[in-house]
């Protein structure tokens, strides 16, 4: 292995950025580091094809955010040296490839989660491998992501894999996409080269219906436009990668809070006889019936009128516990328990919604199905469908079509194989309060489970 292979090897502390000395002992964290109690949480995924420098980018982000500590660097440096890297050079992939098989084969098998923080935000990074089972990994990493960073090699521009990644991002309705044109140094920081790729990337994003797309030139290896604006791309006046990630609205702070209330009930808390010894006034909780769940969207306050699915009974919220403590109001995505004015039959699988917004119960739906299991999807098979806190039996009525993952065009298909995406008609054994995924990610998503061995077969989003 040679260190000129920049996709896997990187010289820490290139021409830019802090921590320029490659020796591990120089890695420092400054006093007054970010406090997680103030900043918000932002989840993003990284995706790219083979050799576009994703490991280097992830390593660079973690390094420049000082999320890689001295002993981790020591360990990576020691293993890098065993593998013939020159002193001071690192195989950044060793930081992210956590499994023995990954390190031995030099491939990334599974999504890895990384954590770092800046003064403004805490980040959860889902690092999605690009080549093996990319659909499965992309779906896993992107399903809850606020943003996806897709890497493009400046020398190659938009390739088939880029279009596929962007297609999955689009189908999963990830709110923000950042297309990082990497290795900009290898095309001599050429503006025309960048603008060509930018034009094509934005055209693809537009075609796929991606609402908020940003394209920026970076060098993950050298640090250009990662944390600090690069003087070598004076023609680029947009934000750095970190700057973009810090300023995109997160799911927890935008639409989820302003939509109508939807609270899927996980379980009913009825502690009669089993009160916590810490409760000081047990008499207050003698008849306590709390409906516990995590608010999927909207907000709730004591005195609010709500309806309960199924049944549609209207009642009033009489009390709220947020994480076990009394509160006057709560908002998505807090975990709460609410008490209601009327004795209603509310069990796991029920959904408490704002009055007047009761969803229709659905026995049938067309879903976009992301096949994750090696077994094919065929009409007539029975599965379990999990939606919110409800799990019901479901039947695959028919496979309607398959997506061409470059254009998202539909093509005829009778079965869906692993890593394929297509539309399927499902029938359910009980009413489900389904809403289109385009209006509500939580209300429009399902997982399909094998009723025999329990394997997770597929992810599905409600189309209609």
């Amino acid at each position, binding site marked *: 292995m040679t260190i000129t292979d920049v996709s896997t090897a990187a010289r820490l502390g290139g021409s830019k950025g802090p921590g320029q000395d490659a020796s591990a002992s120089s890695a420092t964290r400054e006093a007054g580091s*970010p406090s997680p109690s103030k900043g918000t*949480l932002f989840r993003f995924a990284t995706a790219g094809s083979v050799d576009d420098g994703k490991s280097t980018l992830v390593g660079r982000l973690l390094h420049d955010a000082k999320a890689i*500590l001295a002993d981790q660097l020591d360990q990576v440096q020691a293993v890098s040296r065993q593998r013939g890297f020159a002193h001071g050079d690192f195989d950044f992939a060793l930081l*992210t490839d956590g499994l023995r098989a990954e390190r031995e084969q030099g491939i990334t098998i599974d999504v890895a989660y990384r954590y770092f923080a800046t003064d403004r935000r805490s980040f959860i990074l889902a690092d999605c491998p690009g080549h093996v089972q990319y659909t499965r990994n992309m779906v896993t990493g992107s399903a809850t992501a606020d943003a996806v960073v897709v890497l493009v090699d400046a020398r190659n521009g938009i390739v088939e894999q880029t279009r596929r990644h962007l297609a999955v991002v689009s189908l999963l309705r990830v709110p923000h996409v950042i297309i990082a044109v990497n290795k900009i140094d290898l095309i001599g920081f050429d503006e025309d080269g960048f603008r060509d790729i930018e034009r094509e990337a934005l055209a693809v994003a537009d075609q796929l219906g991606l609402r908020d797309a940003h394209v920026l030139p970076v060098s993950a290896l050298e640090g250009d436009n990662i944390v600090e604006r690069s003087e070598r791309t004076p023609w680029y006046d947009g934000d750095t990668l970190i700057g973009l990630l810090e300023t995109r609205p997160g799911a927890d702070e935008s639409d989820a809070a302003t939509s109508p209330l939807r609270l899927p009930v*996980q379980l009913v808390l009825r502690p009669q006889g089993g009160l*916590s010894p810490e409760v000081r006034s047990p008499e207050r909780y003698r008849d306590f019936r709390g409906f516990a769940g*995590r608010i999927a969207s909207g907000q709730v306050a004591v005195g609010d009128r709500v309806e309960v699915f199924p049944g549609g009974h209207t009642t009033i919220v009489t009390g709220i516990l947020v994480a076990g403590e009394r509160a006057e109001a709560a908002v998505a995505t807090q975990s709460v328990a609410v008490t209601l004015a009327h004795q209603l039959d509310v069990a796991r699988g029920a959904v408490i919604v704002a009055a007047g917004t009761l969803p229709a119960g659905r026995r049938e739906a067309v879903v976009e199905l992301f096949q994750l299991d090696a077994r094919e999807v065929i009409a007539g098979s029975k599965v379990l469908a999990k939606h919110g806190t409800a799990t019901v039996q479901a039947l695959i009525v028919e496979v309607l079509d398959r997506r061409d993952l470059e254009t998202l065009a539909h093509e005829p298909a009778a079965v869906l194989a692993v890593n394929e995406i297509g539309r399927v008609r499902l029938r359910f054994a009980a009413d489900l309060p389904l809403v289109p995924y385009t209006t509500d990610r939580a209300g429009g998503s399902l997982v399909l489970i094998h009723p025999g061995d329990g394997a997770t077969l597929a992810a599905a989003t409600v189309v209609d």
Partner: protein
Amino acid sequence: MSTPTIDPLSALDVLEAEAIHIIREVVAEFERPVLLFSGGKDSVLVLHLAARAFAPGRVPFPVLHVDTGHNFPEVIAFRDETVRRLGLRLEVARVQDYIDDGRLAERPDGTRNPLQTQPLLDAIAYGRHDAVFGGARRDEDKARAKERIISLRDEFGQWDPRNQRPELWSLYNGRHLPGQHVRVFPISNWTELDVWSYIERERIPLPPLYFAHEREVFRRDGMWRAVGEVSQPRAGEQVERRVVRYRTVGDMSCTGAVESDAADAASVVAEVARSTITERGATRADDRISEAAMEDRKKDGYF
């Protein structure tokens, strides 16, 4: 009437809500959950979140301690006090019993962390537990970075990292066959700094050795080791009195202290934010055995 504006949730609020959601899902879907509780800060945090999840009711499952026998006495005292305060049932699986009757052999290096796996699996089988909560976090170790929140174990307790279920949205799949069980990690997405910031915010009690105190220690493998029954200096190792604290609490024979004057949670938060070494790198001799030490232990059924 809904209140018109509520500030965006902080990262800690979101992590708290996520953990409580996970704990409630498992209680709703499983028959006999149990929580691994050592008195260490991560398991204390999970227990605190469980208490929050079911308030005003009590935590609806027992706790299990896999006791290496190499304990800090103040941690055992804290464990017992916590169990009493919350009205819980404590199950204890003792490594010492296995060594006494020959089912396990003491390792040449004297470390008992890897010996916990067999007593743990037996306790899970004996209690017929189908879900086992643990305080492991993905930021602790690169094998743990690949772990699921709900992670399937076969009848031998083995983790198969190459064949993990994809985990989508907040829809956790806990289906399992008889004999299988799941491990559940509600604080997967917390960092060490998150844990300490939350402990400070919520004023969660911890064993006193997490805070600066004076102790007789000696230097080994670049760490300060406490002098104790199972942790004696060898020839040439000088015993000194130092002001130290522990960043992790495990088998006393392989857990090191760090020099620190952080006497309360706020000072620990500041110290962790400045630290240049990970908590396991600073304090766990067993994770230095090989690059894949944690992965290998996990595959065998360790937590």
